[in-house]
């Protein structure tokens, strides 16, 4: 009885604490699932996705080894006067892009190797991009305690969801009048999941 009582409370309080993350992941999954709809909606506005902020002369050798690209990206960030989370990508043999992203704002710095210059562009704010950006935000790949804390929070939320499912099961099993109907729902869910994974 004591365990069951504790389990009910755990299920409840866990759900309440996880609410903002559940709402974020639910809301941000809509533009993921219906990306084309949101893109078409935005295209109708006829506005550019990127707004040029600055151009700076820059000349520094790009490392051949992809493992060194992040250090190069940090140097470009510094040169562009930016600070925070970023990712560096080799766009083409003649261009490296460094993406600087926060929840509310994104900036890209293009290093045009042949032209020896940096082009800094800000992303036009879009709610769907803000949500999908927040959804995909990791943290452990960044070198700051703040981002690593977010990474840890994402891990804890994931573990919380697993615990939430487990505590839900533990609450359902003693409910004798709901055992059979619950079993139907559970079996239907597992069967649908397995079938779809096998078919897709």
């Amino acid at each position, binding site marked *: 009885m004591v365990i069951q009582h504790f389990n009910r409370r755990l299920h*409840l309080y866990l759900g309440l604490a996880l*609410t903002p993350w559940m709402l974020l992941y639910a809301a941000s999954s809509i533009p993921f699932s219906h990306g*084309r709809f949101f893109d078409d909606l935005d295209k109708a506005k006829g506005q550019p996705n990127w707004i040029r902020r600055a151009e700076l002369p820059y000349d520094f050798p790009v490392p051949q080894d992809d493992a060194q690209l992040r250090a190069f990206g940090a140097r470009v960030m510094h040169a562009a006067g930016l600070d925070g989370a970023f990712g560096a990508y080799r766009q083409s043999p003649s261009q490296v892009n460094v993406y600087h992203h926060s929840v509310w704002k994104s900036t890209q710095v293009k290093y045009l190797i042949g032209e020896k210059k940096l082009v800094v562009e800000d992303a036009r704010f879009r709610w769907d991009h803000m949500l999908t950006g927040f959804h995909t935000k990791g*943290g452990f790949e960044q070198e700051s305690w703040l981002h690593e804390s977010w990474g840890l929070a994402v891990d804890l*939320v994931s573990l919380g*969801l697993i615990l*939430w499912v487990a505590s839900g*099961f533990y609450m359902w099993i003693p409910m004798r009048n709901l055992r059979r109907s619950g079993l139907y729902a559970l079996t239907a869910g597992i069967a649908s999941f397995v079938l*779809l994974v096998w078919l897709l």
Partner: protein
Amino acid sequence: MKLLRRIHLYAGLFLAPWVLMYAISTIAMNHRELFREEATSNPQWQKRSESRFSGVLSTDASIDQRATTILAWLGQDGAYNARWQAQRGALVIQRQRLIDPLRITYTPSDGRVVVEGQPTRTSALLERMHRRRGFDRDQVADDIWAFIVDAFIVVMIFWVISGFILWWQMKVTRRIGFVFALGGLAIFAFFAAVL
């Protein structure tokens, strides 16, 4: 209130596999560094078979028409991504299967069709499931998956709303519930503001 409890429970039981899949795959994706060794120690693509396409493909056919013809010939209909590699003079088709994705390379000059597969990796499978979306594809199974993902979104919001209503009925848990709800909100708001 009884109906609310029942829907809360049955939706939870039905969607439990998806909740677990999304939770476990999130951890795997959040720690890609841990799985990098597993990824690089295995060769990316391994040849499974090689054959000659005996049919005729019109030179006017689009990339998608060519890809669907090759896939149908191989008995591999389903979700795919195809692109023409001009340098190699080959059509490369990524057959996006969840469990065993394939890369199919068709070279029109000699009719050669090479099918390659990847060694099974749990972390990659989890990531493919997490990222799978379906409404842009023509397959029924993809549409059903996409529909369940949409249903999952609705149910998640329903769990939150019904959870709040059920909590509010239990006067004894109101105070501690507030602490947890506000605690979660405060941590989330902090991160949303500073990240």
